[in-house]
């Protein structure tokens, strides 16, 4: 049987999830995308402003582990191909809102959309 405590644990975790979702969505996510940042292995690899992007741009990111092909459009970005076996980054699809990310764990590549969040704070530091 599912006990009282089991239910309590499930409810508690779901509440933590909801609470952290609300906090993150205000602190990190926003509607207005300004640019794009690409990090490899924790270091900044490249960054672009959407104001400068007038046509689709294909970027090949070379890492120690392999490569990722990133397509940057006027509104967002998507990973079109990658050397990693799971292809989770490719399956993530297109990101276009500020705060959204594509990560490739095997290649240690992180792509995120920069811009103002809902609190209109430019950057969040941890």
């Amino acid at each position, binding site marked *: *049987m*599912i*006990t*009282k*405590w*089991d239910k309590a*644990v*499930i409810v508690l*975790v*779901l509440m*933590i*999830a*909801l609470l*952290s*979702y609300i906090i*993150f969505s205000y602190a*990190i*996510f926003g509607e207005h995308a300004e640019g794009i940042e690409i*990090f490899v*292995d*924790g270091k900044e690899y490249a960054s672009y402003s959407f104001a400068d992007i007038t046509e689709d741009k294909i970027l090949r990111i070379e890492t120690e*582990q392999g490569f990722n092909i990133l397509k940057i459009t006027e509104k967002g970005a998507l990973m079109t191909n990658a050397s990693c*076996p*799971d292809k*989770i980054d490719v399956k*993530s699809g297109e990101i276009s809102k500020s*705060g959204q*990310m594509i*990560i490739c*764990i*095997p290649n*240690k590549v*992180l792509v*995120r959309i920069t811009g103002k969040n809902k609190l209109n704070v430019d950057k*969040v*530091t*941890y």
Partner: protein
Amino acid sequence: MSIFVSLGIILQYVENTILFTPVPGGKLGLSNIVSVINIFLFGGPNALVVSMLRAFLGTMLTGGVSALPYSLAGAFVSTISMWGAKHFFYPGLSMVGISVIGACLHNVSQIFVASIVFSSGYIFSYMPILLVVGVICGFVTGVFARIFGNRFLKRKDIL
């Protein structure tokens, strides 16, 4: 003991081969079934050794070296937490609740590893979805663990 290691590896392999992963890190964690049963049958230390061995060997087989820190951290944290949960809260908390705790902390520990690997706190924005996934997966594996575990417990004499 080695039977349990190989059971875990097989489940991990099957899961990687046939199951589609909708979100990064969203896996059912079938080998968690083995860890839960193990804690009940042979106790925490044994389960910890088995799950670490399983994580090491299984990941070498399926995910490659880059997935190793995630897998080891996940196995370590989830087994320790389920052992603790069983020790302090069983039977108030059933196998299902214990499994949910293990699955959620497994995911949280992997977010920590990812934030270290990427040296970026932005990874934590995956936490809400991974917690929800953890609840669902932990629930499912917990139910399986109870079905199989009760049969094992009844026939402990043959093991």
